[in-house]
């Protein structure tokens, strides 16, 4: 799969159809896979593909707008939902970007892998996909671990946009099907069963821990505003200090802005240094949007987002 990727990228760079290619590259240590921007032929070798390619690279496409030429990007099925939404929200033109879809069979969640293996990630030399298992090389020996034990949360409910024409595909792009054993919204229902006070306490504690480093905003594909309302001085929506009231405003307003846009890529939760359970917040957003308006972001290109449309017979508990 990796060599086919190299050939394609080399061809694209060679023909000059793209200025640079956004893919996954090896970091300084083998367990670190980082976004890498390949501009010239000799860098193509750095491109890798495997179960540790976690990042959703779609947001980087937005940077390509100031290039004269096009940008190429490697996207998993779930990442493509971000491309679909960016198209739907007029942020990119389809011809501006060369999309290479890769058949992904589930990505590893480093934190759970560490717990399951009992070994820090830095000792992991590499992870290989082996059907319904992962083969993890640590030092010399290799250990296999069942996939569903160490998969990223989102991989258990893998979803792809229904009809999307990739420019190139590596392997057959088909949703990775695995029995997650519980409903996709189990973690939300669990919180919903709590009383209002318990939920308040839970979220107040989480919001209080937030240091407002904005990583969740900067990594999110949907936060592409030229100047975010939080950075604006007049009107001042938010005071800069990470006080509880300001943190709560920050996270709830982001949740509202993500209504009908969140594609469950859970990058916000992955990059959060303070381990805030953000996916439990945004999973709720997706659950309500699905239940109230029967809509799922990033699936249909021409479907009108829910909060900018309406039905005459929407439910109306407000009589």
């Amino acid at each position, binding site marked *: 799969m990796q060599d086919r990727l190299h050939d394609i990228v080399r061809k694209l760079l060679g023909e000059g159809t793209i200025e640079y290619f956004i893919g996954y590259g090896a970091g300084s240590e083998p367990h670190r896979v980082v976004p890498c921007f390949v501009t010239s032929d000799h860098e193509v070798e750095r491109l890798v593909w495997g179960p540790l390619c976690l990042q959703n690279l779609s947001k980087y496409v937005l940077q390509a707008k100031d290039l004269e030429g096009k940008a190429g990007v490697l996207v998993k099925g779930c990442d493509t939902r971000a491309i679909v939404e960016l198209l739907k929200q007029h942020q990119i033109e389809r011809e501006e970007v060369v999309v290479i879809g890769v058949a992904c069979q589930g990505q590893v969640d480093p934190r759970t892998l560490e717990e399951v293996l009992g070994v820090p990630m830095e000792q992991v030399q590499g992870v290989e996909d082996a059907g319904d298992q992962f083969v993890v090389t640590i030092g010399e020996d290799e250990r296999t671990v069942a996939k569903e034990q160490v998969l990223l949360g989102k991989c258990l409910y893998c979803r792809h946009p229904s009809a999307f024409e990739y420019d190139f595909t590596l392997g057959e792009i088909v949703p990775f099907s695995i029995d997650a054993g519980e409903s996709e919204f189990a973690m*939300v229902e669990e*919180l*919903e069963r709590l009383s*209002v*006070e*318990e*939920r*308040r*306490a*839970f*979220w*107040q504690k989480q919001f*209080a821990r937030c240091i407002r480093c904005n990583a969740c905003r900067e990594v999110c594909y949907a936060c592409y505003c030229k100047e975010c*309302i939080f950075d604006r001085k007049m009107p001042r*929506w938010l005071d800069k200090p*990470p*006080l*509880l*009231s*300001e943190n*709560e*405003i920050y996270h*709830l*307003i982001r*949740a*509202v802005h993500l*209504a009908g846009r969140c594609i469950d890529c859970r990058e916000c939760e992955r990059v959060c240094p303070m381990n805030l359970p953000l996916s439990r*917040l945004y999973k*709720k*957003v997706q659950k*309500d*949007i699905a239940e*109230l*308006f029967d809509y799922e972001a990033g699936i249909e290109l021409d479907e009108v987002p*829910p*909060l*900018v449309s*309406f039905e*005459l017979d*929407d*439910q*109306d*508990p*407000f*009589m």
Partner: protein
Amino acid sequence: MAVEGSETGGNGFEPKILMFACNWCSYAGADLAGVSRLQMPANCRVIRVMCSARVRPEFVITALSKGLDGVVVLGCHPGDCHYSEGNYFTRRRGLFLKKLLEYVGIEPERFQVRWVSASEGAKFADTVAEVTRQVKALGPNRPRRNAQ
């Protein structure tokens, strides 16, 4: 009918409730309640907007997080909107926001959406009384001292 005056008894806690009223229907309904001298608790403060669709969910979140005890968005009955479609969006935003706020531990009574037409003075007064009673029962919206 609306509660005669507001009870200042009980634990003495008087909630402070923010109300958005749309210029064509609910603000006129509020005026009619006034014209008809319908007494109601003095906990609600009305902000006039041209259409209930102007009320950003961000206002509701900011108001509740800054410690106000309740926020009510009033609009025309669906189909009556002066701008023909405004309140359909208010309805959808309200549906979503209500569930989100409840999820993060804000009691449902603290954020409400109600349809009040220009001739429903009594309904406006009842809404004010009812919301005040409900929010008062919940107690203060936890003074948001900044726990760090």
